[in-house]
C-alpha cells in the first residue's frame, strides 16, 4: 500500500528527529541543501530566478518532486528578498542577476564598512535609532532621506515633541515613506507566494529543513555592519566595543529566531557560520569573539525546545573540542570542509553530524564517484546513527545524476539493520 503524503511527512520528520537525538533511524536521512540548483535544474534564467515568483515556486516544486529529499531546504533561505523588492528600495548591499551580476543565478554580497568604526557608540547607545537614521539610508538608496529624521528618542516627550512630526512632511522623507509602503506591498505579495509554496510542499509530504534562522553576533556585525576587514581590525583596535556590540546583538537574534520558529511550527533553526573558521581567526579570537555568543545562541534555542542546525561553513577542525560544549542530542552540526571523521570522533556522542559530500564532487565527479564517497560516509559517520547525508555547502551547481546517485544510494545502502 502506498503511503499518504501525511504519513510520509511524519516518517521523514521522525527520521530526522531520530538522527538529531543520536539514535539510529530506519535509515540515514538524506537532504541535499539545494540553493540556486532549484533554478538551474528547472531551467530558469538568472533574471527569472529573481523576478518571476511563480516560476521560482514551480522550479522548487519540480526539484522536490523529482528528487524526493527527506527534507527540503527552505527556498526563502535561498532568495531572501526578490528582485522587485530590491529594485524598489534600491538595495546596495548585494548584486543580483541584472544588477551587477551576469550569467549567475545567485546573488553576491558587496563588502563594505556600512557602520564606521567611530559609530560603535551610537549603535550601542540606541541600536534602533542608529539603524533607522544611519544604517538604512546607506544600504537602501531610496531611504537616504531618513538620515534627516530627528533622533527618535526625542519623541519620548509625547505632547512636547509633537511638532517634530513636521520632519515627516518634508518632500524627500514623504517620498521615502511612500517607497517603504510600496516595498511593503511587494513584500506581502512575495510572502503570500512563498507561504503557498510552503503549504504545497507540506501537502506533497515534505518537511522543510528549517524555517527560522539566526546569525552569530560576530557575523552580524562583520557581514552587515562593519565588513570583514572592519570587524577583523576591531578585534585589535577596539575589542571592548566589539564585545559590547556582540552582547547587544545576541538577545536580538535569539528573540527574533524563537518568535519565527514558534510561529511556523518548525523547530529547526538555521545558523550559518561565516567568519569563525580556522583560517579566519586564531583559536584565542574564536574563544573570545565567536564561540561564547554562538554557544549562548545554541543553548538559548534548545532551552526554547528548538533545534539549532548550524551550518559550519569552511574548516573548523581545530575548534571541534570547544564546540562539544552543548547539550547532547539536541542540535545538528553541518560541516563543509571540516574533517568529518575527526568530527565524528570528537562530537559523535554530542551532536548530529550532517554533510560530507563535497560540492565540487557533485559537479565534477561521476555518479560512481559520488556513491563511493557516500558509502564511506555511511560506514564511518553513519555508524550508530546521528548522521544526515548532505552536501557540504548550499548546492548551486551540480549534475542532477550525481544528486540522484547520492539520494538513491543512501536510501539503499543507508538502511540500519
Amino acid at each position: 500500500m502506498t503511503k499518504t503524503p501525511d504519513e510520509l511527512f511524519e516518517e521523514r520528520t521522525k527520521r530526522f528527529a531520530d538522527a538529531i537525538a543520536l539514535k539510529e533511524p530506519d535509515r540515514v536521512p538524506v537532504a541535499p541543501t539545494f540553493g540556486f540548483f532549484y533554478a538551474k535544474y528547472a531551467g530558469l534564467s538568472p533574471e527569472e530566478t529573481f523576478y518571476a515568483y511563480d516560476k521560482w515556486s514551480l522550479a522548487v516544486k519540480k526539484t522536490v518532486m523529482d528528487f524526493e529529499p527527506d527534507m527540503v531546504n527552505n527556498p526563502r533561505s535561498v532568495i531572501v528578498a526578490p528582485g522587485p523588492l530590491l529594485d524598489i528600495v534600491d538595495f546596495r548591499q548585494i548584486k543580483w542577476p541584472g544588477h551587477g551580476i551576469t550569467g549567475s543565478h545567485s546573488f553576491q554580497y558587496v563588502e563594505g564598512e556600512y557602520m564606521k568604526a567611530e559609530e560603535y557608540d551610537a549603535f550601542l547607545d540606541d541600536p534602533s535609532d542608529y539603524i533607522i537614521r544611519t544604517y538604512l539610508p546607506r544600504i537602501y538608496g531610496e531611504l537616504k532621506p531618513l538620515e534627516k529624521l530627528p533622533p527618535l528618542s526625542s519623541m519620548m516627550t509625547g505632547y512636547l515633541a509633537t511638532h517634530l512630526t513636521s520632519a515627516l512632511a518634508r518632500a524627500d522623507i514623504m517620498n521615502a515613506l511612500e517607497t517603504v509602503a510600496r516595498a511593503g506591498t511587494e513584500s506581502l505579495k512575495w510572502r503570500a507566494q512563498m507561504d503557498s509554496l510552503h503549504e504545497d510542499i507540506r501537502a506533497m509530504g515534505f518537511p522543510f529543513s528549517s524555517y527560522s534562522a539566526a546569525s552569530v553576533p560576530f557575523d552580524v556585525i562583520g557581514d552587515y555592519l562593519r565588513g570583514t576587514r572592519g570587524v577583523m581590525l576591531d578585534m585589535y583596535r577596539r575589542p571592548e566595543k566589539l564585545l559590547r556590540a556582540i552582547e547587544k546583538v545576541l538577545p536580538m537574534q535569539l528573540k527574533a529566531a524563537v518568535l519565527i520558529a514558534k510561529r511556523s511550527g518548525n523547530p529547526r533553526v538555521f545558523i550559518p557560520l561565516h567568519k569563525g573558521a580556522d583560517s579566519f581567526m586564531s583559536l584565542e579570537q574564536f574563544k573570545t569573539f565567536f564561540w561564547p555568543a554562538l554557544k549562548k545562541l545554541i543553548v538559548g534555542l534548545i532551552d526554547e525546545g528548538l533545534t539549532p542546525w548550524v551550518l559550519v561553513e569552511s574548516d573548523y577542525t581545530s575548534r571541534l573540542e570547544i564546540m562539544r560544549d552543548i547539550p547532547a542530542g539536541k542540535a545538528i552540526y553541518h560541516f563543509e570542509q571540516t574533517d568529518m571523521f575527526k568530527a565524528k570522533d570528537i562530537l559523535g556522542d554530542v551532536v548530529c553530524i550532517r554533510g560530507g559530500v563535497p560540492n565540487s564532487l557533485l559537479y565534477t565527479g561521476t555518479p560512481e564517484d559520488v556513491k563511493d564517497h557516500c558509502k564511506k560516509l555511511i560506514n564511518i559517520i553513519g555508524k550508530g546513527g546521528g548522521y544526515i547525508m548532505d552536501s557540504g555547502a548550499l548546492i548551486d551547481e551540480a549534475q542532477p545524476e550525481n544528486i540522484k546517485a547520492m539520494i538513491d544510494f543512501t536510501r539503499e545502502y543507508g538502511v540500519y539493520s
Partner: protein
Amino acid sequence: MAEDLVSAIAELEEEEALRLVEARLAAGYDPFKILEESRRAMEIVGRRFAGKEYFIPDLIYAGEILSEISVMVKPHLGQNIEVERSDKVIIGTVAGDVHDIGKNIVTFMLDINGFEVYDLGIDIPPETFIEKIRDTGAEIVGLSGFLTLAYDSMKNTIDAIREAGLRDRVKLMIGGGQMDDGVRKYTGADAYGRDAAEAVSLAKGWAGIKLP
C-alpha cells in the same frame, strides 16, 4: 635600534610601531631604511601566516600598519625607487565572482615573497587575463573564485587562454572556497593551492626559485 621597528610591526604593536617611525623621521633617519625594516617585518608576518601562527585578521592588521607607515614616510622620500622584480604573476577573481579576500591575501603573500604581482581585481573576463599575459609576458597566472559558479568560469578562462595560443606559455593555478583537485582537473589548470602559502610555493617552484 632597527630591530625595535621590525619586531613592533611583526608583533602587531601598532602604536609602538608608529611612534618609532615618527621618532626616526624626526631624528632624520634614512626613510628608505624604515621601508626596508617594514619589509623585513612583513616577511616575518608572512612566515607566521604560512606557519599557521598568524591568521587572516593578523595579516589585515599588519597590512593596515604598513600602509600607515607608508603614508608617514612618503613625504620624506626624494623620488620613488622601483625595486627590480623579475618573476611576474597575474592574479584575478574570475568572471561572475566578486569575492576578493582570499585573492588579496595571495597577492600580499606573493608580493612579500618578491614577485611582481598584477592583481586584476574581481569579476575578470577571460579577455582581460589574455591581454595582461600578452602585455606583461607573465608566465604564472592565478585564478581565484569563491563560488561554485567559478568552476565553469575558470574552465572558460583557461579554454580561452588555450584558444589564444598562450596555454603553453603560462602555468595556471586555481584557488578559493569551493576548489579542490577535482575542480583543477575539470578546469584544466596546472595546480590547485589550498591556501596562500601553497600559492607561493607553487609560484616559486614554477619560477625556478629554490624552496627553503
